[in-house]
């Protein structure tokens, strides 16, 4: 897992390795599973409308299937330029 910007700050770490159960098949389900396991994750993920995700560096909707990724990133809407 990779976290950026205020998602990273609220969780208190930039990355971690997790092993979700097999019933976690979408990015949204992964977010639910992480939030259920820690108050910091729950605080970071409280407003799902303000979360964006990438699976193996490809930007996806939260309801996208997870597959068996090496890297999932969760972050706020982007504000570059």
């Amino acid at each position, binding site marked *: 897992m990779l976290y950026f*910007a205020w998602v990273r700050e609220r969780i208190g770490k930039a990355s971690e390795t997790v092993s979700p159960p097999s019933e976690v098949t979408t990015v949204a389900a992964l977010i639910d599973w992480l939030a259920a396991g820690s108050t910091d994750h729950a605080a970071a993920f409280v407003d799902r409308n303000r979360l964006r995700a990438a699976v193996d560096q490809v930007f996806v909707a939260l309801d996208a299937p997870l597959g068996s990724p090496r890297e999932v990133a969760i*972050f706020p809407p982007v504000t*570059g330029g």
Partner: protein
Amino acid sequence: MMTVTVSEATIDAGTEFAAISASGAGGIATFVGLVRSDDGVAILSLEHYPGATEAALRALADTAIARWDLIGARITHRVGDMHPGEIVVFVGTAARHRGAALEACAFLIDRLKTEAPFWKKETRGGETSWVEPRDSDDVAAARWKA
């Protein structure tokens, strides 16, 4: 010719312009984004997603080169801490004629703002806050839908 750079190094507009001009094209368009100096921001910090950022910028440049038949495209984006008046981003496009260069340049900066994984944090009077995305940026990006 496409060049995408993301780094903490200071961006020099003259150096960037010379690089895109070297393409030999008849028309060069550029956009330079600076750290605002009119609203009390002392430090602007840019975070990004290494690897994914460069890939997103290369994909945008590829799209622009194909859509406007560009001779060259250059995107240089700074990350890390910067101060008011310093350059955050340089976008340069080179084409045979001005129309393609100008449109492609606008396309690149509009889409960069909504598709490349950068996040801005502002420090004002010792307080820090993450910059919120603006609806107007989504509108600007949407006008380029093919």
